[in-house]
């Protein structure tokens, strides 16, 4: 007997359509129930290939189960639910519909058994995440959305080139571990890395996410980068270049977040930072490291969404995201402050939070492989996370100075979503064992060994000390920080403008030269063709008729000869 497996992604896609077709309470019900139905379907998918189909002559596997895939699909579905709960009373219906379709893309990627399916869901995410960015509704959001779309469509093309190459050269569309050894696999790796916001294109993330609506950034923070991390775990475990790509991302995120004034851009940079930890873990590639990457992705989606939720509530209530204009909000927004702090502690991997029980897996993996430099850099980065996200975000938004703002606390649905995820951050931190059982490989690890806890407490608390001692150096300025995207946003535009000018001026000069040439030639042409020239002057009828007679006679003669 074969059981019928419902592709979980299709449920969310149907949800996206239904959000558009329904109104009022029915729409709210769809927004909240479709992710839960998806979650149920995720857990019905058995291990191994569950659905096969034929597509353009290839045997594809749209649904393939497994512990790792289930873990990611589970958190994607939970995220769609919590995001929906956070947004359903405030967001526009088309943002909610786009968010469902976007989440469907992520769930689809999680279960994709072959490269073709992976690519199709990949593009689905690209399209609908762009729509979510556009739902920011401002001219800045429109422009950022276009830049975002160009980047992701470009990434999609690169990924597609790689997939075609692999399919042509190996004849297999299977998703299986590979190393970046030839052109095809490099293209696949680059295509995936673009979605993780790896260098040199990290800037797209902090450009697009903060331009979205207060609710949109919550969805955006979850799916694109983490589905790319899953793709890396499936396709490139142990690819050494990823260790260094990841470490670059980790420190890039910290430094740019330290320079940033916009609260949501701080959080966006810290997404790059956190995904860097995961990419590095995939590069280490042992079972423990891959467990760490998967677990950290799971935990990260929750606490990062929680942080974006708290920043979203602040933006929703005050219309402000600049740290220099915020401050002192803890007075009237105690719940949002508390949830923001819990998210901040979790991202800093403070003991008793989800970050601690997942990120330390990555450090231990580095240590087991004897990667001393990686281990110490990750430790320094952990301190840096506390610095740029753990303290900086809540401090500047909720404490700092009294901005005079007295906004209301979160609406009930936003509060409920934040409490749900805050509780999840603490649960995963305090009782990690049930969660570890969901990881792809067996976990034999004691997160709360006293020595380890003490080491991290020292590390984090003394970074806290550094933060408050160095506060004068971190005065918020009304600035942005240039990034590699300057190359295409400014340099490339200037170059194309210069090119256009060059073409235009060349054309003008060419025309001028022609005119001048004509003017020079005019007197010489005037002699035969001018009004008194042989060929230009008027002739009398008589001589003309005579000439015609002569010519016709000559023609006749020639014809008979």
């Amino acid at each position, binding site marked *: 007997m074969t059981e019928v497996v419902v592709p979980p992604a299709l449920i969310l896609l149907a949800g996206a359509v239904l959000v558009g077709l329904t109104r009022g309470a029915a729409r709210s019900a769809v927004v909240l129930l479709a992710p839960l139905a998806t979650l149920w379907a995720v857990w019905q998918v058995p291990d191994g290939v569950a659905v096969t189909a034929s597509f353009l002559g290839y045997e594809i596997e749209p649904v393939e189960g497994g512990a790792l895939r289930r873990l990611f699909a589970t958190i994607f579905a939970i995220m769609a639910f919590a995001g929906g709960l956070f947004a359903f009373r405030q967001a526009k219906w088309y943002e909610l519909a786009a968010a469902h379709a976007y989440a469907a893309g992520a769930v689809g990627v999680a279960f994709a058994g072959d490269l073709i399916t992976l690519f199709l869901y990949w593009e689905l995410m690209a399209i609908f995440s762009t729509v979510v960015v556009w739902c920011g509704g401002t001219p800045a959001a429109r422009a950022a959305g276009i830049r975002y779309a160009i980047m992701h469509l470009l990434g999609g093309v690169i990924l597609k080139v790689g997939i075609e190459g692999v399919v042509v050269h190996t004849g297999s569309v299977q998703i299986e571990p590979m190393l970046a050894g030839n052109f095809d696999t490099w293209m696949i790796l680059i295509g995936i890395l673009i979605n993780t916001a790896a260098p040199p294109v990290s800037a797209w993330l902090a450009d697009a996410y903060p331009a979205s609506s*207060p609710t949109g950034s919550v969805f955006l923070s979850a799916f694109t980068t983490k589905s790319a991390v899953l793709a890396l775990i499936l396709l490139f475990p142990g690819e050494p270049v990823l260790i260094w790509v990841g470490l670059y991302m980790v*420190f890039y995120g*910290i*430094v*740019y977040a*330290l*320079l940033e004034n916009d609260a949501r851009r701080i959080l966006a940079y810290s997404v790059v930072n956190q995904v860097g930890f995961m990419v590095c873990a995939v590069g280490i590639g042992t079972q423990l490291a891959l467990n760490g990457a998967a677990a950290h992705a799971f935990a990260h989606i929750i606490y990062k969404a929680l942080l974006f939720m708290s920043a979203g509530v602040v*933006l929703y*209530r*005050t*219309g*402000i995201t600049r740290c220099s204009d915020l401050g*002192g909000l*803890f*007075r009237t927004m105690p719940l949002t402050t508390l949830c923001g702090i819990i998210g901040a502690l979790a991202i800093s991997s403070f003991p008793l939070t989800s970050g601690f029980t997942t990120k330390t897996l990555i450090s231990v993996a580095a*240590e087991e492989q004897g990667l*001393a430099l990686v*281990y*110490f850099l990750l*430790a*320094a980065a952990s*301190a*840096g996370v506390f*610095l740029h996200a753990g303290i900086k975000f809540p401090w500047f938004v909720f404490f700092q100075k*009294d*901005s*005079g*703002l*007295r*906004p*209301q606390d979160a609406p009930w649905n936003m509060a409920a979503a934040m409490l749900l995820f805050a509780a999840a951050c603490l649960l995963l931190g305090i009782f990690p064992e049930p969660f570890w059982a969901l990881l792809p490989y067996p976990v034999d690890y004691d997160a709360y*060994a006293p*020595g*380890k806890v*003490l*080491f*991290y*407490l*020292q*590390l*984090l*608390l*003394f*970074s*806290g*000390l*550094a*933060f408050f001692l*160095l506060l004068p*150096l*971190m005065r918020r*300025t*009304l*600035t*942005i*920080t*240039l*990034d590699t995207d300057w190359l295409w*946003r*400014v340099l490339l535009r200037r170059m194309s403008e210069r090119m256009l000018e060059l073409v235009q001026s060349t054309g003008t000069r060419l025309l001028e030269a022609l005119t001048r040439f004509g003017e020079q030639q005019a007197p010489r042409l005037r002699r035969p063709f001018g009004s008194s020239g042989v060929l230009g002057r008027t002739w009398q009828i008589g001589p003309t008729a005579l000439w015609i007679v002569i010519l016709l006679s000559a023609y006749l003669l020639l014809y008979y000869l």
Partner: protein
Amino acid sequence: MTGPERDPDDGRRETEHWLVRPSTIRMLWIAFIAVLGLTVLAQLVIDVKGYFGADGWFGFGAVFGFLSCVAMVLAAKALGVLLKRPEDHYDD
């Protein structure tokens, strides 16, 4: 998304929140420094396993955490000199 009216005098008119009183802040600093001291002193009792030698030294986590943060802040500061631009840099 209309923001509440901003009134700079608000803070002065209402009684100051207990959390921002200078006395509270002084207390918080004292408590913080006490906790910092405890986390270092605790290493006398609790053995921190050093995987690569140095990370097992007494107070290593504290010094390493503090110094890496100082280094990162200074690095960011230096980079900021080169890369910071006014907010409207990209506006047409």
